[in-house]
């Protein structure tokens, strides 16, 4: 018997064959799907009216078709959240084309268009809940992990509006606006209870009550408790030397959160509140605190409330009045072996607290003229009545920071959507903002939207945006121990050009393509001042970026859904002509929802690829590929939903770049975890 070695051609053929067969199988499945002609025609009229119309409200502060909006839009709906097993808003955004999230075992940091700066608590994207700003009054950022103000189970859809939005929203709408829409009270039978458990030591319980009466009064009340024991042991090689604990943080990954949401509404009048309190232990020893000390922890609380009145006058003028209050409390504790120059050699537990509260009011007026022009105008004011930061120790007793201040801002905006000729709409808008802490800012947005053919929309968009320096960047210091103030910060600014194509392909497919270019000035970045080795925020960077984004959406009548997204981007420091840190060149995301047994059992598969990122000092992370699998079933018993998810299905090791507050430049992320969830509607 002779053993022959296969030729390279034969090896290549053997490798390619299963791929070709897989592609053929997929193609045949597509063909079979494309031949069905079911879709909406199978629904009764009443069922048809339960189908949500795909529209967006965040782009122009009014409901409009995504194809009519002056921006590139993605909408993630509740069906995708359920079927893909998303646990947090960060999970939702990880699946959106061009977006990526880094996690440092405390907070989740959003990146988009190749831009995610260290020390930025998501202040370059504006976050809304039902149209209400929830970015805090101190960092101007928003938290999107388990510390997000809403339980993800209460989300009806998430609108992602790319590009500058300061022309409507003012500061922070730098790279985009994300509007989270909650479920309608009328979508509940009477109530819903859910329980989920998983790894590592994770459980969550929720109870929600909601109802809508015939007289149009509706209410929703929901509460959630979440606990995550975390990993027993996390290894950090940077601390694998005495006097550390051999690089192992033992039992320091605990997290717990409580959420509440309430809403009462009658016709155009609504009252809403949201609340979250999240506690997290810190295994990473940030800000040079003692590694392995169980006292390193943070607690973040956010509460908001708002009253909103929408009224349509007889002359077709639409009025919206909004009054809101938002509170963010942060309590951090960090253990140090040395209290600093005043108490050299004395160990200390440092308290790092902040209290931020703002009150905001907005009046919006809208009217349609000559059935061709929709004019929207408004005034917005915000009083940061509390922007307080404290750093102190109780034993020994000392204060290193006690900064109490307040500030205010106001802005006026207008937008005109003008249908010039039948298939062409021009959207012209702008906003003027005046801050008590800084200079004024004026930001326009121009968009031309051409419905070239039925199913084909072309958009050309130009806009600018700004981000005012926040009180944290400007005034935070821990007594010049590790970080110092910089009252001379200026606002950041960005201008963006974008071309977008949205193309319906037959009944089942939709293609979105966009190409953009941005140029950002005076970017605020946390750096180490070489003169004293202290962290400080400075207007040091100018960045430019360009990229293309593509997304193919497929939806079939039998519940089969798929989305494939790609973003190719290049973001670099203009002065040094080097790539920005934490900026992947390529992102590929894919989601597939497949009915396995009618619509009662589905499989949701998600894959995500990020090319390597560097952590600011040329240390690159490996490219990451993460896949998740969720089986979702409902209505086996009336009102019962059951899902089982495996995250990081192939247990791939990957790392995220971190900010300069951590010694670790790359932080390893979770391996394979699972979750089982049971939900019952009563």
């Amino acid at each position, binding site marked *: 018997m002779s053993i022959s070695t296969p030729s390279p051609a034969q090896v290549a053929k053997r490798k390619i064959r299963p791929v070709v067969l897989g592609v053929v199988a997929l193609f045949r499945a597509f063909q079979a799907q494309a031949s*069905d002609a079911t879709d909406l025609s199978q*629904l009764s009229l009443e069922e048809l009216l339960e189908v*949500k119309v795909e529209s967006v409200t965040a782009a122009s502060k009014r409901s409009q078709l995504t194809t009519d909006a002056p921006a590139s839009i993605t909408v993630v709906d*509740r069906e995708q959240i359920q079927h893909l097993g998303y646990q947090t808003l960060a999970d939702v955004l990880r699946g959106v084309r061009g977006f990526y999230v880094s996690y440092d075992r405390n907070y989740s940091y959003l990146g988009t268009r190749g831009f995610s700066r260290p020390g930025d608590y998501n202040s370059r994207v504006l976050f809304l809940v039902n149209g209400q700003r929830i970015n805090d009054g101190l960092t101007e950022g928003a938290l999107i992990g388990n510390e997000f103000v809403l339980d993800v189970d209460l989300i009806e859809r998430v609108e992602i509006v790319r590009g500058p939005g300061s022309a409507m929203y003012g500061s922070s709408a730098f790279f985009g606006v994300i509007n989270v829409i909650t479920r309608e009270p009328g979508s509940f039978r009477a109530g819903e209870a859910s329980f989920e458990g998983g790894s590592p030591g994770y459980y969550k319980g929720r109870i929600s009550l909601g109802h809508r009466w015939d007289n149009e009064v509706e209410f929703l009340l929901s509460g959630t408790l979440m606990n995550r024991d975390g990993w027993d042991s996390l290894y950090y090689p940077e601390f694998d030397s005495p006097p550390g604990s051999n690089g192992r943080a033992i039992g320091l990954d605990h997290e717990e959160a409580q959420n509440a949401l309430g809403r009462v509404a009658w016709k155009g009048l609504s009252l809403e509140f949201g609340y979250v309190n999240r506690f997290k232990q810190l295994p990473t020893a940030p800000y040079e605190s003692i590694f392995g000390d169980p006292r390193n922890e943070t607690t973040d609380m956010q509460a908001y409330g708002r009253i909103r009145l929408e009224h349509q006058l007889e002359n077709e003028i639409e009025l919206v009045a909004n009054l809101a209050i938002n509170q963010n409390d942060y309590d951090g504790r960090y253990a140090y072996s040395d209290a600093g120059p005043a108490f050299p050699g004395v160990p200390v537990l440092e308290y790092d607290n902040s209290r931020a509260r703002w009150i905001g009011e907005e009046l919006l007026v809208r009217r349609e003229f000559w059935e061709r022009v929709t004019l929207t105008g408004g005034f917005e004011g915000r009083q940061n009545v509390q922007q307080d930061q404290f750093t102190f120790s109780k034993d020994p007793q000392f204060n290193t920071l006690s900064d109490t201040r307040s500030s205010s801002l106001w802005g006026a905006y207008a937008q005109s959507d003008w249908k010039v000729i039948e298939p062409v709409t021009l959207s012209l808008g702008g906003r003027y903002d005046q801050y008590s802490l800084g200079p004024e800012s004026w930001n326009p947005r121009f968009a031309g939207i051409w419905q070239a053919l039925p199913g084909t929309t072309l958009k050309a968009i130009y806009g600018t945006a700004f981000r005012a320096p926040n009180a944290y960047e400007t005034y935070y210091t821990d007594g010049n121990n590790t970080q110092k103030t910089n009252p001379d910060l200026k606002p950041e600014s960005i201008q963006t050009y974008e071309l977008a194509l949205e193309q319906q392909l037959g009944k089942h497919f939709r293609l979105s393509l966009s190409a953009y270019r941005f140029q950002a000035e005076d970017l605020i970045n946390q750096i180490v001042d070489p003169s004293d080795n202290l962290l400080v925020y400075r207007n040091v960077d100018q960045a430019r970026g360009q990229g293309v984004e593509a997304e193919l959406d497929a939806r079939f009548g039998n519940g089969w859904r798929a989305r494939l997204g790609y973003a190719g981007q290049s973001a670099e420091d203009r002065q040094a002509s080097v790539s920005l840190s934490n900026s992947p060149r390529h992102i590929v995301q894919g989601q597939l929802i497949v009915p396995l047994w009618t619509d009662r059992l589905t499989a949701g598969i998600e894959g995500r690829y990020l090319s390597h990122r560097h952590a600011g000092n040329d240390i690159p992370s490996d490219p990451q590929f993460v896949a998740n699998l969720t089986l979702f079933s409902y209505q086996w018993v009336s009102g019962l939903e059951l899902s089982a998810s495996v995250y990081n299905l192939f247990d791939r090791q990957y790392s995220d770049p971190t900010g300069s507050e951590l010694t670790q430049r790359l932080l390893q992320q979770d391996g394979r975890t699972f979750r089982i969830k049971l939900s019952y509607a009563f």
Partner: protein
Amino acid sequence: MGVLVLWACAGLTWTATGQTPTKPRSAPEPAVKAAAILKILPFVQWPTNTFAASNSTFVMIVLDAPEVAAQLQKVAAEQKIGEHPIQVRRQMPDSWQDVQLIYVGRDYRRGLAGVPEAVRRSPILLVGEQPGFARSGGTINLLLTAESSQIEICREAASRVGIRFSSHLASLRAIQWIDETKVQ
């Protein structure tokens, strides 16, 4: 590993092929509107002599709503209303004799006022998509937004031109019937 993933996807997709249709939770607005129109039409009772023959063409005019027109045209190639094949046009015809439905898009500059008075006295369904349409002489108004969807029907506007709706339609909660007293 990539091959395994591909195979898993292909297998699951294959498995799903041909399963019982599910109910889509969201869809483009024009598709929902087109589907709603086609769901309502079987419940419309036309005056005698509306159609020249039992298989004559059902003509729809869609004014300034190209996306809705496109959706209706797709369906028209596959469906009939009773025995009547469907024809969708996008411009006002010279003769209204054979027209059964006019869809007035929200972008139609002249609105309902742009529809000739003679047409409004003919057995033609006037379908619109903006607030107040069914209260100002229109027959059916499709009010679909991301937040809520409803269909308004003004029975009086229909009956003035001899059009009636079957009792089954009247029993649906999805329909809001506009009373004559509310017509301004």
